[in-house]
């Protein structure tokens, strides 16, 4: 069998190579595998892997067509759903650039001299996000927002040598689950702090109470909250409180909102995390996304941060050049003492985000955030006019996500809307202090007035009866 992806698979080539090696057959190269566990080609070939035989390209393309035809694509309107990733406007140039083979098929740039372009692109990602967050150091990416939270709390444990991490009770539950997994490995205890039922802001008294134990490694907050949408006005006070108590202040941010909001670097955050998905990445049913991780310019933070860093330096001839830096933090050098086990990250997505931020610039990014603000507030206003609907449910300001209370079960409302071709928000029953009638709705710049009006009309019809 000759295969297009295996140039030496032609029998004549293989035989020529085997002969040069003085080896009688391919089998001979596996002679050190104990016979009891060595599979014969017949045994292996009869396993139900794929369709049990190689498919020719046209057959594969037919399978692809079939797969694609078995999903429903919501574009008109896009899903009214966030939860940590969002339907957003994506400039077409992003994918065109990251699908260039030189980027797409490259490895981690271990050889600086032949990979300067890749390194520069990653350095630019780090630099652009640094400006967005006003944090000095940004790594070349982690997996996603939630695992970045996990890494951040492990880092806080290393930096402070304390075990307790506080989070608001309205923290994104999926992020919390992930953080809990990391915490389980690292021996960190996560404790929830009360959130005000009216405003959605963190309860400062409860926070102070919990900080008073004196063993808090960090307080983690979202800004804006990815599960209530609220911009917490107590955030600066909370940060000051945790700093007074000797802990780190970790902020999880939605990056586009940073065009309108005072960035974490100005709020005293020691660490900022988030997801770069809004920066030009598709939803793609789960990923790849982009874990953002940034720290202040402080040695104990930088030296304890996880992940790869590209730095600017010079080459032997004094010209600007780029290199991987501070690698002594990483697993391939430091092994069991590394700051994380991460190696493969989300580099290509980081380049996508760099392209996005370059295209949008300060003005474009602000326009995106403003459009989100307008469309979501327009939606809230229209919804609030429906009988029995409270929107927004919480008093805190928001930019694109907001909670609503419906007169019926939110999951049921969602089902009915789906029948009419609209993907509504996330039902909040069981989450924190919310009821079964509550829903997290998302409206971004990707939604038009027509989309919102349609949602409101359809909701009206499924509610009213």
């Amino acid at each position: 069998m000759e295969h297009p992806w295996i140039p030496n698979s032609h029998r004549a080539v293989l035989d020529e190579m085997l002969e040069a090696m003085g080896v009688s057959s391919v089998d001979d190269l596996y002679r050190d595998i104990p016979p009891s566990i060595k599979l014969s080609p017949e045994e292996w070939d009869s396993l139900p892997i794929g369709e049990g035989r190689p498919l020719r390209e046209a057959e594969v393309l037919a399978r692809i067509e079939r797969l694609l035809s078995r999903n429903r694509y919501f574009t008109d309107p896009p899903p009214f759903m966030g939860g940590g990733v969002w339907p957003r406007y994506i400039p077409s140039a992003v994918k065109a650039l990251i699908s260039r083979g030189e980027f797409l098929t490259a490895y981690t740039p271990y050889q600086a001299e032949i990979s300067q372009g890749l390194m520069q692109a990653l350095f630019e990602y780090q630099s652009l996000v640094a400006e967005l967050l006003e944090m000095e150091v940004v790594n070349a990416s982690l997996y996603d927002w939630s695992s970045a939270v996990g890494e951040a709390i492990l880092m806080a444990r290393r930096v402070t040598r304390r075990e307790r991490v506080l989070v608001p009770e309205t923290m994104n539950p999926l992020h919390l689950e992930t953080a809990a997994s990391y915490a389980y490995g690292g021996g960190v205890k996560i404790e929830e702090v009360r959130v005000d039922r009216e405003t959605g802001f963190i309860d400062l008294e409860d926070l102070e109470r919990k900080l008073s134990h004196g063993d808090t490694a960090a307080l983690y907050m979202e800004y804006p909250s990815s599960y209530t949408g609220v911009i917490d006005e107590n955030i600066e006070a909370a940060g000051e409180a945790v700093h007074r108590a000797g802990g780190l202040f970790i902020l999880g941010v939605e990056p586009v909102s940073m065009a309108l909001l005072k960035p974490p670097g100005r709020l005293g955050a020691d660490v900022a995390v988030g997801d770069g998905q809004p920066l030009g990445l598709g939803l793609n049913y789960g990923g790849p996304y982009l874990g953002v991780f940034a720290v202040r310019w402080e040695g104990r933070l930088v030296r304890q941060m996880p992940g790869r860093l590209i730095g600017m330096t010079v080459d032997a001839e004094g010209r600007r050049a780029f290199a991987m830096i501070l690698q002594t933090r990483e697993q391939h050098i430091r092994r069991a003492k590394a700051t994380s086990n991460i190696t493969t990250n989300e580099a290509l997505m980081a380049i996508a985000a760099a392209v996005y931020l370059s295209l949008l610039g300060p003005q474009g990014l602000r326009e995106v955030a403003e459009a989100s603000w307008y469309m979501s507030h327009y939606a809230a206003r229209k919804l609030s006019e429906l009988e029995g609907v409270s929107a927004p449910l919480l008093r805190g300001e928001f930019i694109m996500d907001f909670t609503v209370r419906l007169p019926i079960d939110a999951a049921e409302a969602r089902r009915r809307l789906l029948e009419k071709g609209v993907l509504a928000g996330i039902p909040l029953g069981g989450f924190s202090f919310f009821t079964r009638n509550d829903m997290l709705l998302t409206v971004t710049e990707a939604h038009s007035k027509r989309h919102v009006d349609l949602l409101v009309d359809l909701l009206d019809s499924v509610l009213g009866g």
Partner: protein
Amino acid sequence: WDEPLITEMSRPGRRGALPPRPGEDVVKAVGPIQLPRTLARDSPPSLPEVSEVEVVRHYTRLSQMAYGVDNGPIPLGSCTMKYNPRVAARLAFDPRLETLHPLQDDETVQGVLEAIYMVQEWLKHITGMDACTVHPAAGSQGELAGVLMIKRFHEIRGELDKRRVIIVPDSAHGTNPASAAMGGFQVVEVPTGDDGNVDMEALKAALGGDTAGLMITNPSTLGLFEENILDIARLVHEAGGLLYYDGANLNGIIGRARPGDMEFDIAHVNLHKTFSVPHGGGGPGSGPVCVRRVEAAPGVTLEDLLPGPRVVYSEDEGLYRVRPPGRWSVGRLRAWIANTLAVLWAYVYILAMGPQGLRLAGEVAVVNTNYFIKLMEGHWGYSLPYAPGRPRKHEAVLSAKPLKRETGATAEDVAKGLLDAGLYAPTIYFPLIVEEALMIEFTESETKENIEAYAARLKEIAEEARRDPSTPKKWPRNTSSARVDNVRANHPRTVTPTWRVEVLRRQGRLGPLR
């Protein structure tokens, strides 16, 4: 090539995109933007102002200063940089997928769920294990999943307090000890014998009541199949530990042997290595984890401990369903189900290859490795440490120690000498147990001709070094930059991880990193 930073191309007022704007009716209905006064941003972020034209040109030029498998061989050992077939891109890059939200109802994403389900199933057979999840985002996250499962396993058994140690061979990938440490375990290394196998006496000495598990890759980073693997499995299990398979080197045995048959309890695989998902300059990847149904307690097996959501098939409904992690699970390691596009890429790859194709890939990779060794055999500059008579699998580790002794040229110099010839360098100085290591993995994607050219260049480098020992230090000369200054790159006074640091430092607003 002297491409400025995108930020340096900025010119006030230029724009690269026109994002959506709310209509005037919406603005009028809602009124001016209101944000909490104390939290409103008072100055815009210092992002570049450039046109779309300039952005496209800039990143096109940067891409031309990068090097991927599309440009030529990347024989990085343990990285399995194989060709990324374009038919898979046809699926993974389909614009329709961009719109699929991970919380869409199962009924609306049956195509994607079926593919994820099939990959889970196929990986069971490929690894010889009983259950798989594609949840982890990369191999190292797969390892973390494994370590957490080992922890949970012993916790369920009530033995967590005493089982504090995870054993790894000294030839292991750095991720193994790092992952073990992230699980809160102590790491004990066992040495490699001259035959390239784990030193069995040392292993026996290391095993005991404190053993939580052993993490090993097979074939090893030396490219050698661990001949005592069945004994090792028996000993670890007898000591009450679990056996973890690091699948980074799976390409070395695929189609011939399976971790499940070797009695591994937990195994991860790297879709971006063995299953041809492109590496994207560092990521994204995907690191599925598979387990055997070993019981932790009555009715609770390792399958129940698997992290994250999985796809199951509901016979009743005739539907694929996402099942969230259950009560015994070590939980989520990321918010959503998987790096779906990577899983879909691997789905296409496995469909196209079938078992026969996967086996052929493994076989040709092994032939390529050994053919290369044959070409290098007996050369004065390079040796093949550990069991030189045994066939290698996916990779070979040469030592440039003889070359260094004779000419002063190091493994790094050799690497730069390869770059200078337009060839990508191997992994160097790894595994740590080989001095001046050159760890070379061609995979099945390389042509005989390229392997020959690579060997020839290695020999030429040695000759050039012998002719004039100062030459290698000047390499590379034909690349977009000369050798980079790593001291300056890492010094607390000059380390520059972002442009922001550079600017603040120039303004005197930033001291050394302390």
